[in-house]
């Protein structure tokens, strides 16, 4: 599909082809909305169902039933009448619901009547000494290699961190015949106390039995060691992992301490966000239909706050039903109550998981010359010192230190910078706020930017 082949406008533009985007596109298209779904990856599925339409992993037990459930959703969407465009990067979205898209180096602007942002989550920054070394990767990254390319770690592999995904990946690697030298569990005992009050709900949630089985499976086969201070050691690449002073030789270190909403597109579109104290991240302000503060823009899936893949699909359906009701009041749509009930069931155990796997402060708020901003190589100490100069927030910090100015546009440093400033100022992340983001949210070439339509007034604003 070329950018030129797209229609100038669509009833609904869905951004992201994970469970939320797939379910939203299918629901809307079946109800008769002219629907397009864009995803920048070579195939749909998002991160959770990565590679679902062309998976090289033949043994289904490795990835597990929860993964393969994504296949039905992908098929449902494919047959729904929605136009699915992969390899398509959305680089701009604004209050007028103009969508900037780039496909194979060609940029285009489209007009949407409604937009559902389903850009999901990304892994929380894990700023430890040496985390920029080759040989250090996110656990999610290794999982992507397994799902989409059938690649399993083969050298001396150490995993470190906390959270359900860490244990799931460990199980998948082990099932696939991979070896783990150790899993460094950075969980905190104090978390158990906070989590305990949510235990009754968790016992009722579908995650309880699955999670317990997973933990048992991994603990039977891998060495688990507790750790609070972790460092990746090496000059040109990873050689060792330091865990509280104990050195483990390693070729690959996989880091994970939970996932957080990928807010960049919504932020750039002007969607209001708030700090979520339990999930320790910014989440968009949304109503019960997942509509944001910008009329016509909804945020579904984990981008709306972390709740997992099944919940994401229900959120996508609810957001799509609202879009259909707004644009085609007479159209036949499922009763959103059904989706809401399923969503509630899915969300039941979330508070327990959030509290239990709350990443410890030492691994969120680095010190010294640990890099906070990977792109511009800005250290924690620089950020702390600049905060002490009176720099109150991330936008002034960016001007002073260039943190967040690189190509990742703050995705891997934003939360760290906000938390460090809050820590130095003795205030809350909510008070400190987040980077104000601007298009393009993903880089496009100057030639692409130059190719979009220019009005006479816009031209005259520059030419003299």
């Amino acid at each position, binding site marked *: 599909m070329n950018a030129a082949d797209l229609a100038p406008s669509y009833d609904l533009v869905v951004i992201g082809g994970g469970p939320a985007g797939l379910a939203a596109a299918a629901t809307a298209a079946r109800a008769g909305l002219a629907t397009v779904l864009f995803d920048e990856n070579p195939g749909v599925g998002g991160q959770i169902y990565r590679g679902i339409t062309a998976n090289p992993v033949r043994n289904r037990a490795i990835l597990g039933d929860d993964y393969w459930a994504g296949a039905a959703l992908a098929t449902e969407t494919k047959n729904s009448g929605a136009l699915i465009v992969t390899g398509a990067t959305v680089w701009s979205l604004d209050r007028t619901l103009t969508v900037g898209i780039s496909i194979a180096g060609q940029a285009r602007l489209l007009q949407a009547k409604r937009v559902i942002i389903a850009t999901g989550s990304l892994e929380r920054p894990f700023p430890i000494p040496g985390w920029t070394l080759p040989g250090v990767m996110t656990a999610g990254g290794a999982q992507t290699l397994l799902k989409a390319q059938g690649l399993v770690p083969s050298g001396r592999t150490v995993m470190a961190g906390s959270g359900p995904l860490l244990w799931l990946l460990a199980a998948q690697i082990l099932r696939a015949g991979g070896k783990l030298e150790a899993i460094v569990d950075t969980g905190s005992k104090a978390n158990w106390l906070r989590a305990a009050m949510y235990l009754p709900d968790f016992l009722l949630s579908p995650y309880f039995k699955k999670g317990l089985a997973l933990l048992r499976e991994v603990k039977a086969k891998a060495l688990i060691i507790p750790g609070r201070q972790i460092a990746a050691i090496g000059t*040109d690449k990873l050689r060792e992992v330091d865990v509280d002073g104990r050195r483990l030789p390693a070729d690959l270190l996989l880091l994970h301490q939970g996932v957080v909403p990928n807010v960049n597109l919504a932020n750039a579109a002007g969607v209001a966000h708030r700090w979520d104290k339990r999930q320790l991240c910014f989440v968009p302000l949304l109503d019960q239909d997942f509509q944001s503060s910008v009329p016509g823009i909804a945020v579904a899936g984990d981008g709306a706050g972390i709740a997992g893949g099944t919940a994401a699909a229900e959120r996508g359906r609810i957001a799509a039903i609202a879009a259909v009701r707004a644009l085609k009041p007479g159209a036949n749509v499922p009763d959103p109550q059904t989706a809401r009930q399923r969503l509630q069931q899915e969300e039941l155990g979330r508070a327990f998981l959030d509290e239990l796997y709350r990443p410890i402060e030492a691994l969120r708020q680095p010190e010294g010359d640990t890099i906070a901003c990977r792109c511009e*190589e800005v250290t924690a100490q620089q950020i702390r010192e600049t905060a002490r100069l009176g720099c109150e927030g991330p936008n002034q910090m960016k001007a002073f230190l260039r943190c967040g100015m690189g190509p990742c546009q703050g995705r*891997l440093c934003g939360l760290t910078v906000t938390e460090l400033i809050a820590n130095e100022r003795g205030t809350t992340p909510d008070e400190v706020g987040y980077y104000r983001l601007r298009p393009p949210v993903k880089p496009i070439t100057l030639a692409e930017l130059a190719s979009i339509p220019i009005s006479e007034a816009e031209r005259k604003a520059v030419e003299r």
Partner: protein
Amino acid sequence: MFKRLGDTGATLTLSVDGKPIRARIGDTVASAMLHAGIDHCRTTPVSGAPRAPYCLMGVCFECLVTVDGVGSRQGCLVPVREGMKIETQIGKREAGR
């Protein structure tokens, strides 16, 4: 660092800094480089430190490489093709490349 699970997918050949590597249809530039055991894919424009793919989902921009003469491509989002020429990116990108 990574081994292939089973024998799935047709193979093809691409080059990294002039040296041929084998990859599978379904690989991305980043996964092919990792499987080939290539330590790093770029050095940074700030300090010249070596970097390798980190997130594999398009958000970290660590896997930037030159693909068929075009610099700063995200290796984890570019599917491999037969005969593709990959170059590691050293420091700042050259204008016009």
